[in-house]
């Protein structure tokens, strides 16, 4: 592909009222790659993703998607453009069934037959969801909910998938499973993935490049393998 980034933030500032959460964040995501953003709790990772989706407005700077400025694009338009986020804490629709959650993922789409096929595809990807298709989303286990959240986002047919802490609160074996699936999605569909994580180890292993975020600023940017070997990173984020 080209060397034109599919998603880019240029010196973005944003926050919540007087709280400045992002202080000039610049990142680039190339088509087809997995990029990890790691940082401690409260560093501003979720705010970064929410600012990309315009749920939190950027006060300064530009967010570009496929070369187009999307600062002013309403959040609900983004899935139609191929940009979708799996928010922190999964945020599935708890009182809707698994299947209805998936149907809502395809909300903007009209191609009924293809939607049915995609739902089937989601069940192939996550067999447990197929078994639980009639169950209410809120009654699923944490890992299943995360899978549902990812499957729901995939129903929008994203070109770029933003993942906010997919490992949050899950058992190590489930986390491994989730990251395997993330890698599969990237490899098979060529979906570009920006994953935000506190679990730096797994995220960096899956990613090709990584950003380190501290108190609203990107402090380090490198190849994922180099970040994994960086003694400072190992000390601060890998607990060594």
């Amino acid at each position, binding site marked *: 592909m080209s060397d034109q980034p599919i998603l880019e933030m240029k010196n973005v500032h944003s926050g919540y009222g007087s709280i400045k959460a992002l202080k000039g964040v610049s990142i680039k995501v190339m088509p087809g790659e997995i990029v990890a953003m790691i940082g401690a709790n409260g560093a501003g990772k979720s705010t970064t993703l929410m600012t990309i989706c315009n749920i939190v407005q950027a006060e300064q700077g530009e967010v570009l998607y496929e070369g187009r400025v999307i600062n002013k694009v309403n959040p609900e338009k983004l899935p139609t453009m191929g940009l979708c986020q799996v928010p922190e804490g999964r945020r*599935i629709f708890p009182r809707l069934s698994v299947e*209805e959650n998936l149907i809502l993922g395809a909300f903007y789409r009209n191609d009924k037959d293809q939607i049915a096929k995609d739902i089937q595809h989601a069940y192939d990807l996550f067999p447990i969801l197929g078994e639980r298709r009639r169950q209410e989303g809120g009654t699923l286990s944490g890992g299943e909910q995360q899978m549902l959240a990812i499957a729901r986002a995939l129903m929008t047919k994203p070109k770029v998938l933003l993942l906010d802490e997919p490992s949050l609160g899950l058992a190590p074996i489930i986390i491994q499973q989730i990251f395997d699936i993330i890698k599969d999605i990237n490899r098979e569909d060529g979906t570009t993935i920006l994953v935000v994580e506190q679990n730096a180890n797994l995220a960096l292993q899956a990613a090709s490049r990584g950003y380190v975020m501290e108190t609203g600023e990107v402090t380090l940017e490198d190849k994922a393998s180099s970040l994994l070997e960086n003694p400072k990173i190992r000390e601060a984020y890998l607990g060594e």
Partner: protein
Amino acid sequence: MIQEFKKVWKPYVIGMLWMLGLLWPMLGVHPDGTLTFQKTFTVWSYIVAGSFVILLVYVLNASGSITFITNPVSKAVSGAKSSAQAMPTWVWIVTALVACFVFPQFADRYGTDVAINVLLYICLGLGLNVVVGLAGMLDLGYIAFYGVGAYTYALLNTVYGLAFWVCLPFAGIFACIAGCIVGYPTLRMRGDYLAIVTLGFGEIIRLILNNWMELTNGPNGILGIDRIGWFRFAFEGGIGFETIWVKKLGLFYYFALGLTILVVIGVNRLNFSRVGRAWESIREDETAAELMGVNTFIYKLLAYAMGAFFAGLAGAFFAARMKFVSPESFTFLESAMVLCMVVLGGMGSIPGIILGVAALIALPEVFREFEAYRMLVFGATMIIMMLFRPAGLIPAKRMGQRSDDKE
């Protein structure tokens, strides 16, 4: 059995003493300042005796001494339940429809009057359900749109002499517009804030009706509104139309029934449509809905407008029946009442809401003698309901089952 009794006697005694404390200010303190105890004690002793009997039955049941009665009863109940569930939905619908159709044939004037009331409130409840039950927005000013609908018909009729059927769509549309006007600035808020703001806007609309003397005749209301007119072919002297007025209450009942059926069908269709699903996603998680491509603002506004539209239609019927409207009919208490019906019946469930309305309109009529204690009974019913059936009389069908239905 003694053991069981030991467990419950303390809360019982405390509860009864508390009851006495609550009862006395209501019954013993008179407006002229005199204080009496006689009446309080008689009422209280009845309550104590009554609840003691209930307590006794409860204790006997818990200790298993009356299994010879409870076993057959519970068997019969569960048998009835399963046979009721085995019956397909359409059997229920047909039975209900037939019952509704023959009802005025058996009821007297008073009964028909109450039934019309129930029908109009069903429309209101179902409309509010779109806002509260489906889209999940707590609306405390809902009755204002009922008022807008009623005043639309009242004014168009008394000022311009327009017929009911001409005004009916306008009543719906004006209420809808009022809904959009109120909704546009308020729907950016969420949760509690929204509830308070809708409460405020509801009052504003009522105050406008109350204070705009030139247009609405203020608190005196509007008199002399026409009944529903009904066209009939007149063959004498060429073919033409002749207006007959729907004077008989029984006939009005059928029109109200027609409206109710239309509203039920409409709400049911909305429920299962793409729009309904969008509303539910907003109710469940607004941010997630937005991230999935649901235009939350438009859909919230649509829910508000649809709810207002149904209320507006019901309002026109209300005006036509009463032949008189005044702002007094559209107070906050009415909004609260409709909300209670929705919550009592079961949010999101159409049969539930119908039952909730019937319970809250018909029961107070049945217990008319206890007029003074109406609110007391009302409050107690709500508390008991919330304890035993927190999801309403007939809870909304689980969404999971809904996907099943389609297959």
